[in-house]
């Protein structure tokens, strides 16, 4: 880094430093003249916005830690003391509380941007995976931070989430006691959560550094999804995007500040202002809003997963993999050469595919019947040959972690050559449905897990997984490949021409005489 050619600075002090440690040269290279696609829209603000929120969280967090006491006897009252007695303690705590929510808002929009414009695709796979790692770290940090005030939701949220690990076979109960440092969520748990809540943000900063480093190696994606081909496609980062980022940031911060000052508890839960009581469970345990979608997925698995379902799923997965996922195939047989296993001299596996598809449907059908309607006579009979493989509780945990795991491997699932949804009409619909699906999951995650809500959660969970495991592989093969503009520059000109044409048509329609 920085050992190459260096242009001297005019300012003597800067030059003195830079000739010894070229930080000014690096800053100028990476944030001054850095060539950036010229067609960013406001969705490209949210990385910078998330970064600013991260800084706010670290500053407010460290200040709060100067007044907070991580001991079950006094944790709750130390937070109340921050709210009432510490100078501006209320402000700093409300900034921290709402800052967490707004950081998640920024990150969710940032992730949506990546999804919609295909930013995760080659060569930015690692950049995307580092981003998903940041999301995971943020979730762990936010969860542990919510435990610290030691209110009812803190305690019971911690109890429910740590108990998830008891679902793991054999090692589960041991791991839970290891996490707790006891036989229930207690002082040992609170203490270590505080230590880790302080540590993880700095780990996150490290991963953010790698994320930004990787970004500066590949360069940014852009709304067209076309790589910049030359200077006509890019502009320097400063002043163009420093200004655009600042504009978006200010708008975002205004909304954040409105929440902090005028409705600081709107996103929280009143039960967390009741001190933790291990003997009384609140009627409704709900996580913070940003976890609701994942919580809904966790609770959607209310049925045991049995042998037939796993067998049917495995066959279906094989068919999807060989038929949709791999795109280049020899003509004579629709199976890729990699999986083209001849069973005997006469039969190739691909010729058995219709039979396999039928098998998968039958297995999944009977398996599903056993899982969803265990009281039916046929289910009881079939249940004998199809034992439960994954209990509902473990199934829920696997689904919840799997929902993030799928994001992690997304770059390797989606193999369509076009990035941006602007040139993928089918993908566009699917990904917007996924956003709607995420909102539905968030909404249903706050509802009690009974009646119609369970069905809605199950349907929404099904689409979430189908998007990654069925829809994307299908689009790999069947979505039409429209012709892309030759460059970003040409794309921008096309867009302008289109807009102009629309305006002209509109003007003409206003004056019917002129049109004739």
């Amino acid at each position, binding site marked *: 880094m920085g050992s190459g050619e260096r242009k001297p600075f005019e300012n003597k002090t800067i030059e003195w430093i830079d000739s010894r440690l070229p930080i000014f040269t690096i800053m100028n290279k990476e944030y001054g003249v850095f060539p950036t696609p010229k067609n960013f829209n406001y969705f490209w603000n949210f990385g910078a916005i998330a970064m600013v929120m991260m800084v706010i969280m670290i500053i407010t967090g460290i200040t709060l830690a100067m007044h907070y006491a991580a001991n079950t006897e006094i944790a709750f009252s130390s937070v109340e003391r921050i709210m009432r007695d510490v100078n501006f303690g209320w402000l700093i705590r409300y900034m921290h509380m709402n800052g967490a929510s707004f950081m998640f808002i920024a990150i969710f929009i940032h992730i949506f941007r990546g999804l919609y414009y295909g930013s995760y695709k080659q060569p930015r796979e690692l950049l995307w995976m580092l981003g998903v790692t940041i999301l995971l770290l943020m979730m762990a940090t936010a969860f542990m931070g919510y435990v610290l005030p030691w209110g009812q939701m803190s305690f019971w949220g911690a*109890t*429910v989430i740590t108990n998830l690990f008891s679902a793991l076979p054999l090692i589960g109960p041991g791991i839970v006691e*290891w996490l707790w440092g006891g036989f229930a969520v207690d002082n040992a748990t609170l203490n270590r959560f505080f230590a880790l809540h302080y540590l993880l943000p700095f780990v996150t900063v490290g991963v953010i550094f790698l994320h930004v480093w990787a970004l500066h190696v590949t360069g940014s994606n852009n709304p067209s999804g076309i790589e910049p081909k030359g200077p006509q496609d890019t502009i320097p980062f400063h002043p163009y995007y420093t200004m655009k980022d600042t504009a978006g940031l200010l708008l975002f911060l205004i909304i954040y500040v409105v929440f902090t000052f005028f409705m600081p508890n709107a996103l929280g839960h009143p039960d967390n202002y009741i001190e933790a009581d291990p003997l009384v469970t609140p009627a409704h345990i709900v996580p913070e809003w940003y976890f609701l979608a994942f919580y809904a997925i966790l609770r959607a698995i209310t049925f045991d997963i049995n042998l037939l379902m796993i067998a049917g799923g495995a066959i279906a997965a094989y068919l999807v993999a060989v038929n949709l996922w791999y795109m280049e195939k020899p003509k004579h047989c629709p199976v890729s050469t990699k999986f083209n296993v001849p069973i005997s001299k006469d039969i190739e596996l691909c010729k058995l595919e219709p039979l396999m598809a039928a098998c998968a449907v039958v297995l999944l059908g009977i398996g599903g019947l056993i899982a969803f309607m265990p009281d039916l006579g046929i289910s009881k009979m079939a249940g004998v040959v199809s034992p439960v493989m994954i209990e509902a509780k473990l199934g829920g945990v696997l689904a919840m972690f799997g929902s993030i795991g799928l994001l992690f491997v997304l770059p390797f699932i989606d193999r369509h050559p076009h990035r941006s949804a602007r040139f993928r009409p089918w993908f566009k619909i699917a990904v917007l449905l996924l956003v709607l699906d995420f909102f539905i999951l968030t909404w249903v995650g706050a509802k009690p897990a009974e009646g119609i809500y369970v069905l809605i959660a199950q349907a929404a969970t099904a689409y979430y997984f189908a998007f990654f495991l069925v829809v994307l592989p299908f689009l790999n093969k069947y979505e039409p490949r429209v012709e892309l503009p030759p460059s970003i520059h040409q794309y921008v000109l096309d867009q302008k021409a289109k807009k102009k044409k629309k305006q002209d048509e509109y003007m003409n329609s206003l004056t019917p005489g002129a049109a004739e």
Partner: protein
Amino acid sequence: MTIDTDMSTNDNDKAGESRRDFLYLTAAAFGAVGAGSVAWPFIHQMNPAADTMALSTIEVDLTPIEEGQAITVMWQGKPVFIRHRTAKEIEEAQSVDVSSLRDSESDEDRAQKPEWLVMVGVCTHLGCIPLGQKGGDIKGDYDGWFCPCHGSHYDSSGRIRKGPAPTNLPVPPYEFVSDTRIKIG
């Protein structure tokens, strides 16, 4: 890889390589053992500490609990339910076909004396405290306990009957010190 046992006579390249390999492997093995033995204290420190492990046993006087009443006591940071069951509740608990239960366990195995049911009151699903201890509580469909978090129903023997919980409410180790006193732990 082969290890040449007669190292003193080796002067060809191959033997030299294998001796070097042996050194690498030994060093790596010692390094791994060393790293593991240093890592273990830092992993194990998170497990329950000695004072937590010291099974703080508690004694409970049962005399004030009338038939049909229940009390909750704390043991190891967890609530323990003690219910003085009515004849009807005992009858319900004992008449169930054990093989039809998700977690098959007979009432006789769970209650040392049928009128006293002692168990840890933590839902085996995700650790909430089931309702059913107080007179006015919802007791679920099986006259026992009901967990409000995710809707698990436990019967009058604390066995899971309906809902997501995988197992029965666990019975802690306890013994009758006298007819009216028990020692839990």
